[in-house]
């Protein structure tokens, strides 16, 4: 079973993301900030990382930069963000983000995306 980690500081969004993935055959973990996510990634291997950009103390990008290289080599990194400037997207892809989703987003599309990734 593939493992997915959802990192977002907004409780509502975490709930939305987790709930949307409940029908898929995967194990979903949640982290409410960068440090929590860092600890979880260090302990377990994840196949998909759903990451919010703007979080207090440690942004999503900070987290990716803090991680040891090769830690998430095989994982797909999806970044969710309310930041919409192309420069942000550039910075994100340089940091290793594979898929960039702008808020507000469609949970159904998100489900499809993750489903596709899981079946790969």
């Amino acid at each position: 079973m593939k493992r997915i980690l959802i990192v977002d500081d907004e409780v509502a969004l975490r709930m939305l993301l987790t709930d949307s993935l409940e029908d898929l055959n995967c194990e979903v973990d949640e982290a409410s900030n960068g440090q929590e996510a860092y600890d979880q990634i260090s302990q377990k291997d994840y196949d998909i990382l759903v990451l919010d950009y703007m979080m207090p103390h440690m942004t999503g990008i900070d987290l990716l930069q803090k991680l040891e290289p090769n830690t998430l080599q095989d994982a797909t990194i999806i970044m969710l963000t309310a930041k919409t400037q192309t420069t942000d997207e550039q910075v994100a892809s340089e940091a290793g983000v594979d898929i960039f989703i702008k808020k507000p987003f469609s949970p159904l599309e998100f489900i499809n995306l993750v489903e596709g990734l899981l079946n790969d």
Partner: protein
Amino acid sequence: MTNKTNRSDTIKTRFYKITFLSLSIVILISAITIFSLHSIQSDIRQQFNQSSAHYDAVGQLEYNLTQVLFRARSYYAFQEQTDLEQLNRDLEQLEESIDQFGNLELSENEREFYTMLNTFYDTYSQTLLPQAMNYVDNDDYASLRELGEDGTYEDINYFLSYTNAVQSISENERNSVLNETTELFDLFMIVFISIGILSFSIIIFMINRLLKSIHQPLDQLLVATKSLGTEHKANLEENFGLQEFDTLASTHNEMAMKIQEKEEELVTQNQELLTQQEQLEFNQEQLQSYISEIEHINKALDQSALVCITDNEGKILSVNDRFTKTSGYDEDELTGHSTRILKSGFHSANYYENLWLTISKGKIWNGKLKNETKDGDFYWIEATIVPFIDQKSHIYKYILIGIDITENINNEQQLQLLLHETQYEKDKSEKYGLLNKELTFTSDRSTFLKQTFRYFESIFHFEKGLLLSIYDNAYEQKGFTPEHINELLNSDEVYSYILSRLENESHYVIKREVKQDEKGVADVKTFAYDFYTSVKNDRDEVELVLALTRIGHTFTDEEMEEISLLMKPLGMALSRINIYEAVQLERSLNNSIIQNVNEGLQLVSVDGTMLQTNQNVFDIFDLEDDQLVGTSMQANWMDQLANQCESPSDIKRFFKTMINPSTLTEASIACRQSSGNMKYIKLYAFPIFTKGEKTSTLFVFRDQTKEHEVDQMKSELVSTVSHELRTPLSSVLGFTEMLLHKELKPEKKKLYLETIYREAQRLTTLINDFLDIQRIESGKQEYNMEPVELNRLIMEVVQLFKQHTHHTIHIEDTALSTTVWGDHDRLIQLLTNLINNAIKFSPDGGIVTIQIQNKANKVHIHIKDEGIGIPKSELNSMFTKFKRVDNSASKKIGGTGLGLAISKGIVQAHQGDIWIDSIENEGTTVSISLPSHDQQMLLHSSLQEDNDRSHDTKGTILLVEDDISFASLLSDSLKTNGFNVVHHLSAQNVSTVINQHSLTAIVIDLMLDDTMNGWELIEEIKAHPKWRTLPIIVSSALSVGQDLSEKYQIDAYLEKPYSPDVLVKACHELLGDTDNS
């Protein structure tokens, strides 16, 4: 010359050198000779000694041998014992002499002889002699004879002859040695003589050479001198190798050159002399003709000369015609009169005395005399007075011969006058030139006045003078007092008269009687002449007035004409000064414009030289004033500026291309100031054209830091707002989509809908807050200002938060007046915000205390919580938009981050202040202060001093009352009577309030609308061991029975409605203070 001197020797050194060389050669040769002679001589002496020794040894040998033989024969003959003894002795001596001989250095022959001798001796002494002896003893003379015949004697004879031969040889040798010595001596003589000859010849040779080296230059000198005489050439090689000659040569050359020069001079002089001689000859011829002419003239002279003969006392005896003609007197009129009649009075008495002294001594007097004619005219004569002396040496008469030189004298005088005038004119023109030069370079009005006036002073004579500039009343003067000038300047009449005349006339003179103060000592009626002229500018307006005053004599027309003529160039110079001043003024105006515009301006020529710059450039680039001074070169100023910028190379490129731009171009620069602040500068380049040609570039630096910051803030705000809006929107849209498209359990559906509702609310708040802050910031927020009672307002707001059961909110009101001038709704918004924050950021509950105080004419409100607090580092930025303390604790709480910014906006609109004190994890106090609006309070300024009465009150009363109007009514009454009031709006959490204050009494409303009613609260208080003694006043609309009152030990019961005074009275009673009712 010095080189030559170094190379060549003097004769003396040359002589010393030669002498030394010769002497050393002679000594050397002599030494060698003497040494060789000495060795030869010692050889010879040795040889001689040797042969002498041989000779002696052989002699001795011969003698001894003869002696032996003699003794032997004697013995043979007489057989005498003594002879035998003698023989033996002789034999010994012979042996000795043989040995002696053997010891000598021997030739081969001698060696042979010596061996033979030895053999003989041995034979003789061993054999022959004993045999002979034997024969003798036996008297056997026959045998003896036989023995003798056996050859013994032959041997002896041989030896004897040999010794003789040796002796003769030795003799010969000695002789030969002697000969050799003699020869040697001869040789020595020859050698010595030849050495002598050689030395002599060397000396001769050397001297010859020396002579030659002296002779040669002398010869050349001779030749040169000879050639000098004939060919006029003086080139003599100055390199003889002898200093004296070198010097001599150079001196010779110089001399020769000088001679040549002299010769040339002489030739020219000679030529001159020749011409002079010719002239002389010519003169002589002329003289001859003159002499003949003079004879003619003599006659004429007699005609023209004045002759007067007087007696020895000066009485005129006779005069000639010429004299009478000149003097105008008839001869009769003069004869018999003293010469005094002729005197003009021109000469001094001394002059005549001197004349008389000369002639009375018998000497001739020559001199000029000025005499007077009969008509009173004067004439000059060049006179010679000759005294006539008789045989007794007495002067008996004088004769005066004179030539009329009146015309000469007059001419001379005229010439003098002319010369003087010329000199004067020359001086004048020089001074004028000087003035002109000075005026050309003068751009200063006062210098101009000074120079010009000095010039007039030096050229023209006048007693008083004034040069006045009309426009600024500057002047230069002579002979005036300042009062005079002031008088003139202030006298419009005089002033306008002068001006009006000068406008039409180039100059004029006024003749007037001399004023008292101009008069001086002389008390005679004199006239003064005032001369006026003016300098006019190109618009024909009078610019300068020149007034000169002469006393006693007027100005000549020439002078006036001259002065007037001078006025024109002065006018031109003055116009130039005017233009210069105007330009200066304009320039300083331009400069002050340049210095005072907001932009930095910099003018750069096409070659990159910085021509001008203003202070703003320095300010913008954060450079000191002097950092660009003297750095007009392109590289310097450009580097200085560029180094201040973020990307120096770009800026430099811009500058370089822009120094030659064809059109207006611009660039943006970011430069970092030393304080670390960034400056954003817009840089424009404008080409400046002069007569169609580009001469320079004007760079304009516009400081756009503010605009840049605003832009930055705007885009940041947009980005933040967008982010803030998208986050709740994501939840709303996301959950809606889920609800619409997924089968969900009812609980889930409810949860989703709640979330959507909450997030949508959040969105609304955000949008409202955002609109609020926009309104407030843009100043579009309208405020309906009216007097607002803050304590009431606070109670109203607190009422709204009553539902937050786990927070205790109470109000400590110690302010006498809480009325402010404000907008009711905005203030509610402000207080709601702040109290909401206090509750929100103390998630674990706790007490929220609201203190209301009066301080220095202001109402202070402090809202204290016991919440999470704010880190110190964040305190300063708390009022920034979208600022939320970035930690997990605060993140959980959420919010728009606009609340405090809005609050600050509202407070500022009320001329108030807002500030925050906080300790992290302990709590936060947000304070606001608003100006009080209580007329009475403002009137009683004494109250302002000590409005906060919390420290000296009669006590603190807790009001538990949910009717805000009634509560504030009671509160106001209590406060005016010296009590502090703590409000609590519900029965909940009263205990915490009681804990915090030392209360005088508690006023409890029975009908509290909460879950807990008044009675329960009273029960709780009375049950508490500490609080049971606290006086309780019940305030209720209900009438309560006596039993209940007693049951709960209530101290006072006040039935609503009652007057607040009743409560005050009850409180006083509780304090035992019955006087104050």
